[in-house]
């Protein structure tokens, strides 16, 4: 039995399958997501998504409605309520309707797919998201991405661009991380096809299969990468670059997947790396400890490597510095983290 009384890491990583799927579907601006379940399942997700949008300086309400089940529907079955909610959603002429299930409707056995299949005129796409079946937040993300990939044209032809797959839309630095990856890709002469799925229209999903390469946000999306590879023959790179050495490896992987010589890009990036080491020379020799507010997961090794590269000692009595929940993306991400360390050290 663990005697560790810090917040259990599972609280941060497991999460709700429904929330995971919603972090994807609500990014499709002209679609409506229907959550089939009690109003609370929608309310708390709505609040989370709304607050996150505001954090990202986007003043939009998530396109989200609930079938609003009460005890009566749980006893007598909720299919009628879903049917009426779908009609309400379709009457707003969305480009698509995504239908997400909840724990209670899977418990009472509502046939969500049958109700959705009866609708015509608008694509109505079912994404099973009952979390109690053992899925995590990530399961919801993956299921949603695979379901949305079904909206893409089956044989779109090939272009020279790259898709970004499964961005963490709820993370504070989602746009900064995207910008960093776009910068690194541009060093190889590559541009972005689709941010699948981040702030787009249903129509933009159509060309997902056309990209020459998919860059996954992190390796937990490998099932999605495999799905897209199988359907569109698109190779993938399994994660965003993390840390200093990870950034160089990323350029090598992308270059090799696309048949581009990465050496000029790597040389340029080594220059930026050196510039960064020079910029943060003042923190060399200092001692820090990782703030235990957030449990450090897979990023622990990466962050320690970064500390080592900048000759910062990590000891329990060191000055507490914040460690991001996910490892810093690219050298720009490293710089942002080090700025925070510098502030914490001089505080």
């Amino acid at each position: 039995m663990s005697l560790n009384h810090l917040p259990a890491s599972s609280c941060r990583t497991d999460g709700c399958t429904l929330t995971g799927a919603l972090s994807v579907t609500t990014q499709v601006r002209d679609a409506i997501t229907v959550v089939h379940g009690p109003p609370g399942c929608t309310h708390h997700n709505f609040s989370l998504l709304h607050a996150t949008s505001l954090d990202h300086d986007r003043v939009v309400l998530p396109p989200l409605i609930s079938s609003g089940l009460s005890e009566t529907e749980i006893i007598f079955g909720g299919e009628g309520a879903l049917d009426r909610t779908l009609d309400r959603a379709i009457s707003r002429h969305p480009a698509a309707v995504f239908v997400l299930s909840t724990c209670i409707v899977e418990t009472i056995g509502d046939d969500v797919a049958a109700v959705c299949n009866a609708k015509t005129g608008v694509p109505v796409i079912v994404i099973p998201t009952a979390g109690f079946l053992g899925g995590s937040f990530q399961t919801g993300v993956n299921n949603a991405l695979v379901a949305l990939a079904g909206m893409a044209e089956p044989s779109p032809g090939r272009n020279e661009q790259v898709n970004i797959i499964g961005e963490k839309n709820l993370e504070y630095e989602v746009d900064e991380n995207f910008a960093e990856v776009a910068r690194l890709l541009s060093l190889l002469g590559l541009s972005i096809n689709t941010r699948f799925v981040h702030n787009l229209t249903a129509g933009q999903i159509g060309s997902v299969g056309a990209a020459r390469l998919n860059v996954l946000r992190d390796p937990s999306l490998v099932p999605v990468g495999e799905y897209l590879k199988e359907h569109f023959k698109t190779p993938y790179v399994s994660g965003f670059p993390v840390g200093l050495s990870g950034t160089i490896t990323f350029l090598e992987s992308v270059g090799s997947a696309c048949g581009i010589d990465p050496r000029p890009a790597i040389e340029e990036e080594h220059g930026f790396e050196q510039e960064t080491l020079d910029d943060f020379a003042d923190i060399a020799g200092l001692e820090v400890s990782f703030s235990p507010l957030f449990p450090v997961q897979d990023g622990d090794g990466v962050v320690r490597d970064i500390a080592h590269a900048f000759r910062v000692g990590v000891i329990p009595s060191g000055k507490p510095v914040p460690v991001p929940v996910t490892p810093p993306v690219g050298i720009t991400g490293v710089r942002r983290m080090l700025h925070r360390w510098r502030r914490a050290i001089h505080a």
Partner: protein
Amino acid sequence: MKQIALYGKGGIGKSTTSANLSAALSLSGYNVLQIGCDPKRDSTRMLMQGRLIPTVMDLVRERGATAVTPEDVVYTGFNGIRCVEAGGPEPGVGCAGRGIIATFQLLEKFGTLTGDVIVYDVLGDVVCGGFAMPMREGYAQEVYLVTSGELMSLYAANNICKAIQRLSTRPRSKCRLAGVICNAKNLPREEELVAEFARRVNSHLTEYIPRDRTVQLAELDRKTVLEYDPSSEQAQKYRDLAARVMENTRFTIPIPLEIDELESLARQFV
């Protein structure tokens, strides 16, 4: 107030036994309420001259829970017996167990659960938490198993023992196994077998009710045996059952049998 629940395999005769028991109790002067806890809603039919009364869940579905009144759900049948049917969703949708819970909450709110005796007639198997509701929260404190001597029927009764055992060992639980009622198929040595089964699960045989044509004739006439032919031997059996139920003081925590124990028991009485 005495609150008893009858559980047993589907088709074993719980509703027939419940209705005749309620009738016999009522004729002995007790104020009786019978509650059918089965979406099939046919528990109280023989007390209502063959009428299938509207169920609590039908009324909730049609009007919404707030528009249902106590007068809407209670129907007075034979000899003043008050009858309620919980009902439930259409077969194959929703959650019948939650329907039972909702019914109990509504009846509690209405103050319907009064009288000298309440008889709960519950669905064949305790398939989920909802169907254990009559045994919980201090509703039925005395649970009777209805079984014949057939193995499958004993198997179901044994399974229900597991639910009673689980619930009765909870802190402050008042639910106990009160006895086993043998609703016979007239098999050879059936009474001995069921009595031995009852003993083995730490209970006793409350009453042996033989299979008798009078029951079928009474049902065809949409009556309980006590109304149809009060002077019959079968009517006397139900009066005996009613007397035993009222006198009974032996309430136990059951000890369910393992399946092979149950089979070897049944084999002994072939």
